Every structure is written in C-alpha cells, then in structure tokens.
C-alpha cells in the first residue's frame, strides 16, 4: 500500500546542505507494522514527514525518489489532494503530546475539528464518534470539555492517539509515541496501539530509538544510519542474526535485563554530521571491520527478504575477524 523508491531529502541553506535522507526504499503492506529505528539525526522523522508531505520547504527539498501510496505517486499531489489524503489515508502521531495539542481549546473541540474538516459529518455525529474513540483509548466521557493542561502526559498521548485515529486512517505513522512517557504508561499506550491495529486493520510505521518497543509491536524493522536504511527485514531475522555492523553495535550497547555482562561494547566515535558525510560507507569511521574498500566505495544493498548494506557479511561467514 505504501512504497517508497529511492527517496532523498536534503535541507539546503546558503551555507550548508544537510543530507537527511539518502536514497531509501521500502514498502509497507496492509496490516503490517514496521519499526523505523535509528539514533538522533538518522533521518527517521524526515522520512515520516516526506510521507505526510509535510517536509518544511524551504529549506527541505525532496531531491529524488517516488512515494507511492495506494497506487499514486503522492510527490506530485496538489495541496488539496494532500489535504484529502491526510487524516483519512495517512495520519501521524507526533512525539511530544504536550506540544501536539492546542492549549486553549478543549480536547473535545480539537477532536471534533478534525472530523468536521476531513469528513462530511454533522457536529452531533462527530461528537458521538469522538466520545466513542476516547472511550477506546481509556478517556472517560466527562473529560470531553477539559483542556489539555488538565491531563497527565500519558492521558495527553492517548488523546493524541485518538486524534490520529478519528478518520480511521489506512496508514498510521507514530513518531516516538511513547518516548516522553514512563514505562508503566508506555505499556498501556503500546497495548492500545496494538489492539487498535488489529481492530482497524491499519498499517503502522513506528518510529523509535528503542529496540525493545519494536520487538513488542512490529513485525518488520528498518535500521537507519545517516539517512540510509542499513538493514531491513523481519523482526526475527534482524534481532536473531543482525548482518550490519551498526545493527550489531546497537544491540551490544544496550544494557540487558536478563544477562549480567559487566562491560558494554559501545560504538566508538560519534554520529556523522549530515552536512559533512564521509566518503564511501557512511558508517566506516565507526566500524570495527572497516577495510580500504569501505573508505572509498559505497556498499550496495544485498539480500532479498533480509536486506543489508555492507561490503561484507561479517557475522555469518566469519570471513573477517
């Protein structure tokens, strides 16, 4: 239902060009949920904004690529077509529930506004639907006329989730939906997203930096580094046999609860600057397995179902130590 082909997004100013997303391709089918994982500045949110057609322009430019949603390349959409697609077709949960809500409108009015903007519906009917959905995410009817500041962080995030689901979108993009929440509340919210996914048969793209959250909610995963997808496959494939040194590095640097290792193995160095990317493989300055070819030539994407972007296959063949 969603297919992205060779998408590149750059932020161009007079002084610098930040290459936020570099030639990525992936697809999401109906009912599937894909985790998009990477560190700060890896290009996750820019990818999401491109799908929503919300890349701030200027300075953001989609320099290359196609985004096919339900058989249509939405890059050439007019503003009106975009407006029709957002909400009904694709909708997005933003990271920070505190800033995603209007502080001077009651949540009832805010949710109503969404329905009446995107669908032909009477106000009375809209109210009924809003209350129904709030009930599903666990907010009681008597909170309908409350303002955002009267809700806790977890409740606000649930309002935002209800907001994004009001028009029953076919694709939901959730950008770090639980990062601002405590773990017990995170568990509640993930549970709601999971049950709603089954109920509405939505496709989900879940953006996060938490590999645990992906393991709990997704069936596919793509790992991003410096604007590229360096590894992609089913959650089982990627978690049980990571192929890219960066993916392996990520797993090794997480402290694990069920294992008593004393020393973590961090990835040395820092994330590359998007306006000054290294030559060759973008990961080579931090890679333990770096060889001469990595410094000059960008690796191609290998594999069918389980794709990865590395000159070597360091973890399966044991060719290099």
């Amino acid at each position, binding site marked *: 239902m969603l297919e992205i082909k060779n998408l590149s997004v750059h932020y161009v100013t007079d002084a610098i060009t930040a290459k936020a997303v570099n030639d990525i391709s992936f697809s999401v089918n109906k009912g599937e949920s894909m985790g998009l994982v990477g560190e700060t500045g890896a290009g996750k949110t820019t990818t999401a904004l491109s799908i929503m057609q919300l890349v701030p322009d200027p300075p953001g430019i989609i320099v290359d690529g196609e985004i096919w949603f339900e058989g249509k390349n939405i890059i050439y959409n007019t503003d009106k077509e975009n407006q029709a697609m957002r909400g009904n077709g694709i909708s997005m949960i933003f990271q920070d529930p505190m800033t995603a809500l209007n502080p001077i409108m009651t949540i009832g009015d805010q949710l109503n506004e969404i329905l009446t903007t995107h669908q032909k519906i009477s106000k009375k009917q809209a109210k009924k639907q809003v209350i129904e959905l709030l009930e599903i995410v666990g907010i009681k009817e008597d909170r309908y006329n409350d303002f955002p500041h009267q809700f806790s962080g977890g409740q606000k995030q649930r309002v935002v989730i209800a907001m994004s689901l009001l028009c029953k979108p076919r694709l939901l993009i959730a950008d770090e939906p639980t990062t601002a929440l405590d773990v*017990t509340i995170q568990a509640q919210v993930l549970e709601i997203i999971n049950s709603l996914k089954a109920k509405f048969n939505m496709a989900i793209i879940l953006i996060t930096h938490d590999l645990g959250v992906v393991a709990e909610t997704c069936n596919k995963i793509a790992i991003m580094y410096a604007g590229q997808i360096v590894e992609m496959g089913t959650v089982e494939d990627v978690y049980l046999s990571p192929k890219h040194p960066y993916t392996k590095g990520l797993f090794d640097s997480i402290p694990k609860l069920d294992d008593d290792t004393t020393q973590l193995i961090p990835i*040395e160095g820092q994330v590359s600057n998007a306006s000054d990317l290294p030559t060759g493989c973008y990961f080579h300055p931090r890679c333990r397995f770096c060889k001469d070819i990595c410094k000059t030539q960008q690796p191609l994407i290998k594999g069918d179902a389980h794709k990865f972007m590395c000159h070597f296959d360091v973890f399966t063949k044991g060719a290099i130590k």
Partner: protein
Amino acid sequence: MVLIETKRLKKYFPVPSGHLHAVDDINLQINKGETLGIVGESGCGKSTLGRVILRLHEATSGEVLYDGMDINTFNASEMRHMRQIMQIIFQDPYASLNPRMTIGQSISEPLRLHKIYNKKNEIRERVEELMELVGLPKRSYNQYPHEFDGGRRQRVVIARALTINPKFIVCDEPVSALDVSIQAQILNLLMDLQKNMGLTYMFISHDLSVVKHISTNIGVMYLGQMIEKAPKKDIFRNPLHPYTIALLSAIPSINIKEKSKKIILKGEITSPINPKPGCRFAARCPFSIDICRAQIPKLIEVEKDHSVACYRYKEIQNKTLHYNII
C-alpha cells in the same frame, strides 16, 4: 563502610493546596565504593532526594550523614568544604555548561573557586589530565560547548565534577539524553572511574536496564517513598513489591525468543500533594486490602539486605498472590 546515610529524611514543598511530599521518610545507606541505583517514574521524588542529600535543597526534617556527620547542621564554610567532597552530574549536558565559557574554563572553574592551584600552568596541567581521563582530546581545551555533541558534553561535565577529587557523586539521569551507542560509552566511563578512583555513586534513572547495569544495590521509589530496596540481583530475580513486579514486566525487551507477558497497571500515579493515608500505591494495586488504605506500610527487611514496604509481601513471596496475566 557506610559513607552516606539518611535518617527519616523528608522534603515537603509548600504549594497553594497544601504540601507536596516529594521525599517522604527515606532511610538509606550507601557503602563506600558502591553504587546505589534509584529508580522510579517521573515525579516520584528521585531527583529531589539526590538534591536533599547534597543539601542543594534544605531538608524539611531528618538527617543526612556523611561519614557519620550530619551535614544539615553544617555552617556555610563547613558546607563549602563538603562541596569538594560531594558532586552532582545533571541530566542535560546542554543546560549544565555555560555556552560562553570554553571547555578549559568550565573544567577549571572548581579549581579556581576552591583555590586549589594558584599557578596558571598547574591549572592547565590538571585540566588536561582530567580531559585525558574522560577521553577528550587536549586540543578541545579552547573549544566551546556548542561545538560538541551530547556525549562529549557529558564527558566535560563529568571531568568538571572530578576536578576537586570528590568522594561521592550523585548522577541524576546522566545518560537519558544520549543515544544508546553514546550512552554505553558514558556508562563504561563512569564505571571505570569508580573502579580507579574508589568513587561512591548514587545513580538516579528511570531506565531499569541502565540502573541494573551500573548499580550494586537498587532502591525503588514511588511517590516520595522507598518501597523496595535490595542488591540488584534480588530486585530482578525476586521482586516482592507489586509495583516493582509491574514495573519490571513493563520494560520492553529485545529478547524476541521469550516474549514476556506484560502486566498493565490500571490508572496513573496519584498526586503527591497531601497524599491520602495508607500505602501510596494502593489506588493502583490489585491486591490492596483495607489496611493498605489506612496505614503506610513500613520498609522492613524480609530477607538479607532485601527490604520491602508491603503488607502482603509474604503472600507474594509464596506465590499465593500473583497478577493475572492474560
């Protein structure tokens, strides 16, 4: 040897509608060279506890003992001496460095403030030694914080905390603003420093896997109170408080072979302003009985070094009481 001890430590903040019980009757001990991890959700008072122990907030009542001395009775000049011994590392490395000071100036400030060295070249030598210790290149001496990313800024903050040879450091969420690959670098650094310099840490975090990694003992806080305290292995293998059990099960695990079942707690953390009598967790606890809502359970040692504040821990221990997991 016990280095830090608190006795019945309380910190209430006056608010228009009454008192906010941020830290409510905390007794803890930290041995020299060990790390006490403090976990809990936002608003449970863990940061306030760290600050009251350093006397950055004045305690409402109770004692903070450093090596047996009650620091709450110290006067200003005695306290200034204590500040050399006790340091803190804050969560946000972006907010804790002065943007107009170079890295060298920031790290050397405590040396100048406490008049430890007088000669410029001595200060420079000490700063470079510290920069090397935390893994910063010497050429960064004249750089400004904006030229650094979060991980390297946190290294600067750590170096600054170490300049005057402290014995005890409160680490308040030192890695939660950092990406995982950088987080591992900083955790390793903190652990190496502890080993080499015999430091004692109080490590505050909401991330249980991080706390487990670095701590010797772990204390779990809920609404200003310590509800369970044990060596880290016991907390994870044999949690006794219903909140600890739910908290542990709610952590998303990357282990996809054994999917653990989640305990989803109903409701949210209640207000710390004028809390109701009884156990603070009672409103969300599926096992609460009348006494839980009437009287605060005491933190009692039920196994060696393992304390819990719950009336029904015995039933939980014998597994006659357990969560129904779907």
